[in-house]
């Protein structure tokens, strides 16, 4: 099998390329013109293609002899507009080009950001409703990922392709151990929202396996959430993150209900003072805060559809991710998830 992998040099991409190679597949790896691929350990089975999806005029040529597109490229930081263009518009350009080629299968990296977390109840799974017009309150990443999926669906339907959308929770691994879902830093304190709230994590190697299986298996059209089986609580994970990362910061928990009540009060005050135009700080916006609400997450469908099992359990994943020297300062950034 030959796979075209976009975002191949990204965090998830490099592991997907490695996993595809490990299973003997040929890889055409799309990376942007300015991106270095040194140190990724790519062998001669990886053909590097230098393309920026926003501007490349000849995208159809990328699909020569490609059996499956594994589309991971997306912009996860930057302005709302920049994220939209490199995520949704880029996907539209790529898939419109694919329509003139012989490639007929797409595996797309979706995201938990597309779900309506306000309406999620008890368990967040593939049946949870997606965001609709309220998504614009959620910020650029959620908007871009939602429209990216919509574009992929539209073009897959129009061209009768097989489309597998894998929606990972928070992907983590070496160099990416800070999970935005843990909570916030307030000066010397790391605030964890909720004591027993679990984090929908997937270790990047487990997640990459799911992408390889989705590329290999013939499952028709499917939408599958990707989370590991052993999920830590935000409290425990924050503890590991601080301890193993060598970060000296107190860990404090704030019950979600308290934060939720606070947000409600802030919303009420804002309405009273400013009417519907009032703006709240991000962490008090109900729709953003909902990402922290206590839910369960299931990987049943993924395991059934693809026969996937996480190769790394939680303990092994922790050992693996914190194996390198602790470099907390480079790994405390804010990322989309």
């Amino acid at each position, binding site marked *: 099998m030959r796979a075209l992998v976009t975002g191949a040099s990204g965090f998830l991409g490099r592991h997907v390329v490695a996993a595809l190679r490990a299973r003997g597949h040929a890889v055409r790896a799309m990376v942007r013109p300015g991106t270095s691929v040194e140190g990724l350990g790519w062998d001669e089975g990886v053909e590097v293609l230098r393309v920026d999806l926003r*501007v490349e005029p000849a995208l159809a040529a990328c699909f020569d002899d490609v059996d499956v597109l594994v589309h991971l490229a997306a912009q996860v*930081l930057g302005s709302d507009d920049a994220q*939209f263009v490199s995520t949704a*518009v880029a996907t539209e350009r790529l898939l419109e080009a694919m329509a003139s080629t012989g490639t007929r299968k797409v595996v797309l990296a979706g995201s938990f950001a597309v779900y309506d977390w306000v309406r999620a109840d008890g368990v967040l799974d593939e049946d949870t409703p997606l965001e609709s*017009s309220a998504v614009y309150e959620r910020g650029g990443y959620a*908007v871009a990922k939602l429209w990216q999926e919509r574009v992929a669906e539209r073009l897959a339907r129009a061209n009768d392709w097989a489309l597998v959308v894998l929606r990972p929770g928070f992907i983590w691994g070496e160099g990416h151990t800070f999970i935005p879902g843990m909570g916030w830093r307030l000066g010397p304190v790391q605030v964890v929202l909720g004591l027993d709230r679990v984090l929908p994590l997937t270790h990047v190697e487990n997640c990459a396996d799911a992408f390889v299986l989705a590329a290999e298996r013939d499952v028709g059209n499917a939408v599958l959430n990707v989370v590991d089986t052993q999920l830590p609580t935000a409290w425990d994970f924050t503890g590991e993150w601080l301890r193993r990362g060598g970060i000296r910061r107190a860990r404090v928990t704030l019950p979600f209900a308290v934060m939720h009540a606070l947000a409600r009060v802030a919303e009420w005050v804002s309405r009273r003072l*400013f009417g519907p135009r009032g703006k709240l700080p991000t962490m008090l916006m109900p729709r953003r805060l909902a990402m922290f609400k206590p839910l369960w997450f299931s990987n049943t469908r993924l395991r059934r559809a693809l026969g996937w099992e996480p190769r790394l359990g939680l303990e092994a994943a922790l050992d693996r991710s914190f194996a390198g020297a602790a470099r907390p300062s480079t790994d405390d950034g804010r990322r989309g998830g």
Partner: protein
Amino acid sequence: MVGAGAMAREHARGLAEVPQATLAAVCDRSRVRAEAFADEFAVPAWHTDVAEMLDAVRPDVVHVVTPAPTHRAIAAMALEAGAHVLVEKPICPDLDQLRALRALADRTGKALLEDHNYLFNAQTRRLVALRDSGALGEVRRVEVVFAVDLLGAGSPFVDRGAPHPALALPGGIASEFVTHMAYLALAFLGPHDAVQAAWDRAPGGQPGAVLSALVQGRHGHAVLGFDAACAPPQFTVRVLGTRMRAELDLLEPYVATAVAAEPGARYPLVAMRNALGQSTQHAAAAVRGLWGRLGGRRGPYHGLTELMRESYAALDAGRDPPLTARWIDDVNRLVADLLATWPSS
């Protein structure tokens, strides 16, 4: 609305507050962008082809909010289709093209407007009112400084994958901002006679990251300073008159003034009164700014809403819009003279 990017969203937000306007359609080359924009702003129709949209929608006004190199052609199509047009700055790359567009607007009897949004910001208005009241005395000197970090990670000016179109134009990065500086200077100086300027690249090599210009007017001078690598951001207009000095920052809602001593007054007391007065003006503005943000007021772009409000009201009543053809041409004459000093031209 032609274009569905970040600036088009500012236009859409402003239009929502214009009673005469209904956003009838949006057009973008990318279907998903047009569709998402229509969804976000509840626009009833989206298109991917300008001609097709003009034909289907027959709009009264067209907003051209696309990358600068495409402005002229789209504005011409809109005028031909019988619409008034509001074009983002810079309206045209040179004066000849502007003249051709102006001739077309005259022929069709439609307005050809360029977005001079900062002219309509509350601070600018207060400064203009001070000038008009005579409180400034005679304006001797205007200083416009736009110094903002435009080269940080994620900036379109450092994006190697898809280089910003301005980087290939005379004026480089500054070509995106000189129009603002030009109209702010002319608002207090009046039409200019001559221009001198020096340009420089950014430390990273981006062209047009630094501009220092001296603009000679009939009764005074303007000094324009642009720098694309400064922080904290500053976008100030300082007007020095014969009786008062006043400064505003378009990114912060303050106007700070200092007055000259009356004949016979004691200088130290006047200096102290000025210092205390300015501190109070700054502090009050900081509070107003935070309050405004919590209240959902639209920050530095609120002038765009005012510009549209007044322009639509005038067009609707058959009056001339506040930005006259003469004014827009004067501003573009200054922009053209500034760009004529670009070293590679």
